[in-house]
């Protein structure tokens, strides 16, 4: 077994529930029950050292919640996150977390909210260096900040400015420089390029790949842009309503998608060639996560749903391509292998 690649991150049975009940008084007056939103409802994945796992899925399916749990910003309601052999849930106080926290950093979806507007860029970028006491000498810190800013395509003099002096894309580069400053091994990137124009996006994605190769970084990469995911990921997980519908190697998921939801997502990719193809309109809408459909949560939108789908929740199982799918029809072998469009 010596030949298997080692998983740096192992997530098992991960779940996060939010209490979104109305205030107590309204609940009593309107006679409404407590409402629990299952943002993430039991997912498993592993990420090997030096690899990129991308999570895709529709808005609200729980991608950011997974990201936030993995870096310790949200406590899981259930399940475990094991980072390099250490169960993060078992870690108690700040002191115990610190050595792990240095090794994993997050880049957020929103470059506006994630940078402190009252701090100069130099202070923002050097904050992890100071917090983890990685460098003591002030001149050396300044030099490192300059180097980090250059690494993301900014200039060392930008360190003296404030975030509001930068455009959205420039701010995202600052977040990346900040995330890299503690020399992490694992980066959780929540839509890191969706605020960037495509030319800067190309540079940042190329930069992230270069950094990965050079520094052996491991990424959890969240994006709704399937073309970006196809470019950056080694493996892809498709989420639906807090669960994984399909997960597998990128080539397999894109070339031989098995789960009906994966196929639908691939069908909604915008048509840049303007061949006149209309995007296949999505059948139905994302169900209410507070009160998700029974059985397979995708069944109201699925052209292959049958009675079993309405009552029994499909568990993730390996399929004929080697990826893992949670779908009765795939398991029963009653799905046509070709594209969904023809069948639907």
């Amino acid at each position, binding site marked *: 077994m010596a030949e298997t690649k080692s998983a740096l991150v192992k997530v098992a049975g991960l779940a996060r529930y939010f209490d979104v009940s109305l205030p107590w008084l309204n609940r009593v007056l309107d006679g409404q029950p407590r409402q629990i939103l299952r943002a993430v409802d039991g997912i498993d994945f592993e990420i090997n050292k030096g690899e990129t796992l991308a999570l895709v899925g529709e808005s609200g399916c729980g991608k*950011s919640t997974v990201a936030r749990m993995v870096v310790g910003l949200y406590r899981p309601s259930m399940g475990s996150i094991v980072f390099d052999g250490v169960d993060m849930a078992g870690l108690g106080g700040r002191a115990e977390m610190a050595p792990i926290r240095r090794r994993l950093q997050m880049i957020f979806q929103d470059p506006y909210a994630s940078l402190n507007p009252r701090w100069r860029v130099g202070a923002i970028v050097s904050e992890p260096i100071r917090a983890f006491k990685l460098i003591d000498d002030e001149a050396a810190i300044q030099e490192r900040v300059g180097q980090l800013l250059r690494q993301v395509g900014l200039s060392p003099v930008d360190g003296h400015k404030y975030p509001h002096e930068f455009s959205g894309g420039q701010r995202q580069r600052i977040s990346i420089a900040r995330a890299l400053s503690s020399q992490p091994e694992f980066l959780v990137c929540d839509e890191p390029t969706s605020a960037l124009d495509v030319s800067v996006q190309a540079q940042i994605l190329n930069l992230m790949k270069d950094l990965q190769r050079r520094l052996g970084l491991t990424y959890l990469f969240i994006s709704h842009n399937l073309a970006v995911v196809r470019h950056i990921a080694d493996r892809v997980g498709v989420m639906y309503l807090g669960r994984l519908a399909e997960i597998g190697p990128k080539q397999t998921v894109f070339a031989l998608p098995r789960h009906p939801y994966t196929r639908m997502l691939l069908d909604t990719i915008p048509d840049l060639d303007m061949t006149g193809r209309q995007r296949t309109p999505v059948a139905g809408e994302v169900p209410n996560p507070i009160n998700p459909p029974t059985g397979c949560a995708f069944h109201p939108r699925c052209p292959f749903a049958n009675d079993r789908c309405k009552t029994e929740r499909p568990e993730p199982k390996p399929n004929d391509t080697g990826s893992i799918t949670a779908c009765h029809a795939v398991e029963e072998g009653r799905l046509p292998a070709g594209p969904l469009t023809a069948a639907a």
Partner: protein
Amino acid sequence: MAALLEVDHLRIEFPTRRGTLLAVDDVSFQIGEGEVLGVVGESGAGKSLTGTAVIGLLEPPGRIAAGEIRLMGRRIDNLPYEEMRKIRGKQIGAVFQDPLTSLNPLYSVGRQLIETIQTHTDMTPTRARARAIELLHEVGIPAAERRIDHYPHQFSGGMRQRVVIALALCVNPKLVIADEPTTALDVSIQAQIIALLKRLCREHGTAIMLITHDMGVIAETADRVAVMYAGRIAEIGPVRSVIKDAKHPYSHGLMGSIPKINDEKERLEQIEGSMPRLTEIPPGCAFNPRCPHTFDRCRIERPELMDTGVTRASCWLYANG
């Protein structure tokens, strides 16, 4: 037919201690009634500032230093605050890049929608609430009648943006400035939002200035596209021509760096270097240090928009039409 929106020689400056920054430099374009103008270009090129100037929300020290903005023939760039506020309420709607700037975290989304509706109509609270639910439903929020009482932080990033779109639609505006409206949305909801925006154009004749990095969204939605670079328009023309057959070397490079779903390259094409800082815009063509076709004239003389056949590009390669 006069254009709905006319922007003429717009110039936006930021006076700073380090000198005056010219963030938008002599930008002119028009948007017709019911037309969708896509605005794309490098981060920091001045797209958002241009949009912000049109809705009169440019924040000091930023200021319009020259040029005119006209809506239905009426000049709106120099109106007093109150008058501009009324135009914003009735004729121009806005959807910003960051949904949190448009939503008050202390109020439920329902309260924000209902207040906006009631400011501009005389609907009863019950009618307004029903309308608000309808709008939330229209932008694809599941279980709208229950979610209406939730607060912005209880929604995902994408759902918040849909709430903001609902807010902008409350008043049936003539023009919507949409700054990255679908950036936080996944493809399937994007398709719905785009269908929604298109329907608006068709049914209400609403024009849209659609600022986005997402060329897929532009391809499906826009009639014309303006490509901005370093505060200037590099190229403007019909969507198909700009995407398929860009003439300006910058727009050409931009289109090349789009990741495509069916080609697998180790590295994406990228335009080397970065856009100049506003304090260091080179003389002549702003793109000249990065352009593979630069020649002498490019370093000295600034190119104006020139005819390239179908599009217009500010590039000396097209000096003779």
